[in-house]
């Protein structure tokens, strides 16, 4: 079995474009599309830090964008080189850089087919098979956090991690009271390291403050910062789990694991272990359309329930956070990035509901104006046109009613293309939570796309929204 370093050595010599956009002339069309400023520009600056995150991000983004203009054969060759080199790099560096790289990995893994399958598969390994902290280190972490060795605190404790969490790893264990649990343990110091990285990143980016895309880059950085800070705070995650769990009844077929506070701290999170498989394994067993639809409905029920009944925004839709259980239940297992919806955002959602429900263009335009602070000035017509198309893409599965084919690749790509186009034209200025919502939107759509689900979203939304008590009588369909 070759080591990662040997594998890396065996690959062709790295070329500049593997780590970043090339310095040489770029294809004319790329220039014409003004691709540099965002997000490529953002990743370019990120690369100043030399982080793996930046390298993977830049390599991926550039390659992906460039790939659209290359002939298939060359594209294929470049894909193989870029993806494997980066995947190996990531795997090889996981021990110490796991936090940052996993974030990129998980985000990219949300885009099946658009991100090449080969790369997604390599990144999937990161979700679940990252090289673990060794037992001696893990034991010290548990001792530090819980005050004793794992073998004394638990009836049993598997030395080998069964999953890599984004910022640590997860071990199977059994409590002395008999419960089967999953113990998530964070790599020492990673939380503060990441916070310092982000601070440094801001410092590095200060010269860019005056540039046109500063606000956008800053928003993305803020989004990343908030996300990482939340994900490294296991106490907060425990609180979110405790809040979310009672929202689901047994007959919902949706389960959120129970937390065991006596065995949990800011760096160690002990929760009920649910048995099930992740999306790829679930799909590998060729489930029927009906089964896939059923799980897709549960995913949407879970999301809406958390949002409308719990006022929790589940921002981390990626396949590693969901378990497809044998008995047909859906396990929602990771609450590392869940935001509590404050009154301001709640009122925004309240305002958006009309457009989401009616699907009328005038409602949509009003919603976009409100969301993005855009006026009726003719200079904003392009912004409004794109915003309208994108919002329509986001919401049509809900307002159209009837069965919606989430497995339609053209439809999925349309949304992605629209979003990229908005980014390129710097039309993304909006409420601070926009990056999170965009990512979440693509997250759940990507999961339903992979499930090739054909379901009617409207009744699910209507059922779940009732709990809000909003007066929707003048626009909602009355059943």
């Amino acid at each position: 079995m070759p080591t990662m370093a040997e594998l890396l050595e065996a690959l062709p010599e790295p070329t500049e474009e593997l780590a970043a956009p090339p310095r040489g002339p770029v294809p004319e069309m790329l220039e014409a599309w003004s691709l540099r400023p965002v997000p490529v520009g953002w990743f370019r600056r990120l690369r100043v830090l030399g982080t793996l995150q930046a390298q993977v991000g830049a390599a991926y983004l550039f390659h992906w964008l460039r790939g659209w203009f290359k002939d298939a054969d060359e594209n294929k060759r470049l894909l193989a080189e870029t993806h494997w080199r980066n995947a190996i790099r990531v795997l090889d560096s996981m021990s110490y850089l796991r936090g940052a790289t996993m974030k990129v990995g998980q985000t990219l893994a949300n885009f099946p087919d658009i991100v090449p399958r080969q790369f997604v598969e390599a990144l999937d390994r990161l979700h679940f098979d990252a090289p673990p902290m060794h037992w001696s280190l893990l034991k010290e972490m548990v001792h530090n956090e819980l005050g004793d060795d794992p073998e004394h605190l638990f009836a049993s404790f598997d030395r080998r991690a069964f999953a890599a969490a984004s910022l640590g790893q997860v071990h199977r264990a059994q409590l002395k009271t008999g419960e089967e649990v999953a113990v998530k343990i964070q790599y020492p110091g990673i939380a503060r390291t990441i916070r310092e990285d982000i601070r440094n990143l801001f410092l590095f980016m200060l010269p860019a403050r005056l540039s046109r895309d500063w606000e956008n880059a800053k928003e993305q950085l803020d989004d990343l910062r908030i996300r990482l800070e939340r994900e490294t705070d296991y106490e907060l995650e425990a609180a979110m789990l405790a809040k979310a769990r009672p929202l689901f009844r047994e007959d919902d077929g949706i389960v959120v694991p129970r937390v065991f506070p006596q065995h949990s701290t800011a760096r160690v999170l002990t929760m009920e272990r649910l048995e099930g498989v992740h999306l790829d394994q679930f799909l590998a067993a060729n489930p029927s359309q009906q089964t896939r639809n059923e799980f897709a409905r549960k995913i949407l029920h879970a999301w809406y329930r958390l949002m409308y009944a719990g006022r929790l925004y589940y921002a981390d839709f990626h396949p590693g956070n969901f378990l497809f259980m044998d008995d047909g239940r859906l396990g929602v297992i990771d609450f590392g990035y869940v935001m509590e919806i404050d009154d301001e955002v709640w009122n925004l959602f309240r305002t958006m509901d009309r457009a989401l429900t009616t699907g009328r263009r005038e409602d949509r335009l009003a919603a976009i104006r409100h969301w993005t602070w855009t006026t009726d000035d003719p200079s904003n017509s392009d912004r409004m046109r794109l915003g309208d198309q994108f919002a329509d893409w986001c919401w049509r599965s809900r307002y159209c009613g009837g069965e919606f084919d989430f497995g339609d690749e053209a439809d999925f790509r349309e949304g992605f293309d629209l979003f990229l186009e908005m980014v390129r034209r710097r039309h993304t200025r909006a409420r601070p939570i926009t990056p999170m919502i965009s990512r979440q939107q693509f997250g759940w759509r990507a999961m339903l796309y992979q499930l090739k689900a054909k379901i009617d979203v409207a009744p699910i939304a209507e059922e779940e929204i009732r709990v809000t008590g909003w007066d929707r009588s003048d626009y909602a369909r009355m059943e």
Partner: protein
Amino acid sequence: MRVTAQTKAATRQRILDAAQCLFAAQGFEAATTRDIAREAEIAVGTLFNYFPTKEAVALCLVSEAYAQAAERFAADSSRESCSTGDSAEPFTLEEELFAHVATVLRKLKPFRKYLTAVLETALSPLTSDHADGAAPLRTAHLETVSQIISRHGQEQSASSVALHLYWTLFLGVLAFWSKDASPRQEDTLALLDQSLAMFVGWLTTGTKHTENHSSGG
């Protein structure tokens, strides 16, 4: 009056207990030999019969804790090897070296904050092997490290250079730990993990080079 060995041992222990208590309460810098003597209820002159300096008292405390750590590590190691069933994976070299240092850190924890004083004098790589009675500690530690390295089939690599490099890294980790302000000194764990990964990487690569060299020569 003849002072028996038993009385001597008791006095010595009283001094150590008093010092540990004062170092913890006042800090190493603030506590004087006079304070220690007073706390131990002996004359200052008597204290000097046992320990020439305050640093020597600290070193003795550290050495005794170290000896306990060594015992603990040996016991844990034999228990690990006894309990290794088919399902348990054997420790890697890196993992075992980590476990060794982790055991030491746990035992030295009460002395962490004034470890610097011992590091600056007796444990420094610049100090000669015979100085200040630190040699036994260093020798014992490196002996254990050699044994671990040998257990993992790398005995050829455990040269004096390798051990010196290890000792320097180990002292670096101790120095970092003594000043580590991170929550529960978690940064030290990360530093130790990465330092040992580096050392083991060097050690095993070094072996490869030697093999290549000898086969080529």
